[in-house]
């Protein structure tokens, strides 16, 4: 079998999701048996337009990003969005809660209007081009990434959970964060992370985005039950759930 030619491209992000791939450690050699990286800025200096799979990390925040992304899409047979910034807009979408001009002035001060610093409200990758596969999470779950790569290599559609983090959290037999009076986004957030945060004693931040059909309307009642308000919930959702499409 010929190896899949893979190119990594990063946009607005911390590049931490790519870093997760190096965290495969010795398994990275297994990965390289299946794929041939032709462009991977963090790992190698080569560049190439000849690839089957484009892996996009980061969100789209500038007009030139959009052009570059569209060109990549043209070139790629398969396009994978890697990590929250790419799949939902992630933390970068916090910006969308404010006026762009205010954001620019806050960040760049007197240079705010310099043309090379121009920016627009953050978009997830699938708000610009068609995405074939999403590897959710901040950072990604490397086990899920590996599973998706193996699925592609044997020609099968990977099954990405469309159920909530509660499923995996219950399997781990964690004490529910709601029992501690915390608001946890687990019930409306897509599983696939092995409930990493609740298993470490933290509420779910919702980094993997909503399940396909989240019952957001129910949230208000539920918040009231726990003596909280919808604003408390919105506050929790701001970090990853800002202006999230669902």
């Amino acid at each position, binding site marked *: 079998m010929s190896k899949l030619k893979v190119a990594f491209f990063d946009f607005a992000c911390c590049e931490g999701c790519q870093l997760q791939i190096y965290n495969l450690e010795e398994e990275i050699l297994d990965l390289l048996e299946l794929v041939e990286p032709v462009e991977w800025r963090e790992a190698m200096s080569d560049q190439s337009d000849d690839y089957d799979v484009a892996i996009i990390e980061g969100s789209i925040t500038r007009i030139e990003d959009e052009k570059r992304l569209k060109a990549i899409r043209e070139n790629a047979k398969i396009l994978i969005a890697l990590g929250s910034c790419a799949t939902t807009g992630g933390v970068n979408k916090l910006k969308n809660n404010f006026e762009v001009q205010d954001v620019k002035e806050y960040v760049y001060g007197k240079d705010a209007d310099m043309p090379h610093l121009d920016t627009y409200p953050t978009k997830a990758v699938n708000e610009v081009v068609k995405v074939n596969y999403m590897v959710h999470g901040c950072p990604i779950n490397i086990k899920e990434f590996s599973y998706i790569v193996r699925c592609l290599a*044997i*020609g*099968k*559609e990977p099954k990405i959970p469309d159920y909530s983090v509660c499923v995996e959290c219950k399997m781990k037999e964690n004490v529910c964060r709601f029992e501690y009076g915390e608001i946890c986004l687990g019930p409306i957030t897509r599983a696939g992370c092995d409930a990493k945060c609740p298993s470490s004693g933290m509420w779910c931040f919702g980094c993997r985005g909503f399940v396909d059909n989240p019952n957001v309307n129910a949230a208000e009642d539920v918040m009231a039950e726990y003596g909280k308000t919808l604003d408390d919930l919105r506050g929790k959702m701001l970090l990853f759930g800002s202006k999230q499409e669902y």
Partner: protein
Amino acid sequence: MYKCDSKKDIYLPLPATVGKVQPMTKYESFFSCQLDSGEELGHMPGQFVEVSIPGIGEAPISVSSSPTRKGSFEMVIRKVGNVSKALHGLAAGDKLFIRGPFGTSFPVDEAMKGKDIIFVCGGIGIVPVRSAIQYVLDNRDDYGRVIILFGAKTPHDRLFIEELDKWREEKNVTFLETVDHRDENWSGPEGVITTLLPLVKVDKDNTVAVVCGPPIMYKFVIIVLLEAGLREDQIYLSLERNMKCGVGKCGHCQISNIYVCQDGPVFRFSDITDIEEAL
């Protein structure tokens, strides 16, 4: 606790080999297979098997051939999920893995014997019913009149084209077919399958109806059959659900108190009229 001498693993698929693969339509391909053990599959018409491709998964597939035709068993696979897509990549000589047969069958040796039979098949619904049609034709003297009605969406969606022609020409078989939407090459009738029913006379007291097709078809066909004077216990149909384990454990195919994989896929209509989620 429950002791059982059997160490048989109900989840263990057995190897089989593809004898022949033949594309039928854009989405459907025909497979003929043989168990590597050399044994017959041992199914009855209407039953299904769980087909595995290691690494890809397992899917429930109707057996489309009659047990009267020995040596191999046949399936028609529509490309819809991982397993069916992978099956489409197989060629003669390739391996696949089988569990089963599972479920209930059309009552070819019981209720249908000695009766007139009307087969009503919509689209891919012909796949499981073909097994019963072949069985009946191979034991032709055991049954009264045989009527086969077949409806496809378009002429391109017709399955078993050569066999349809054979049935059409068969002396003691009434065969009618229609397409929902015709094209330039189709000179036959156009219209949904229920338009064929008034064209045949059924002896209402002495007929068994076998119905299989997409969920939407059942409601309409059953109304017409009941209007023609058939009783609910003269109608048999095959239901589709997510039959994941095939052995009544995993829960996916449950509708009300029945497991489609065990209590079905073939049901007598009178047995499920009170079951809310069935149709």
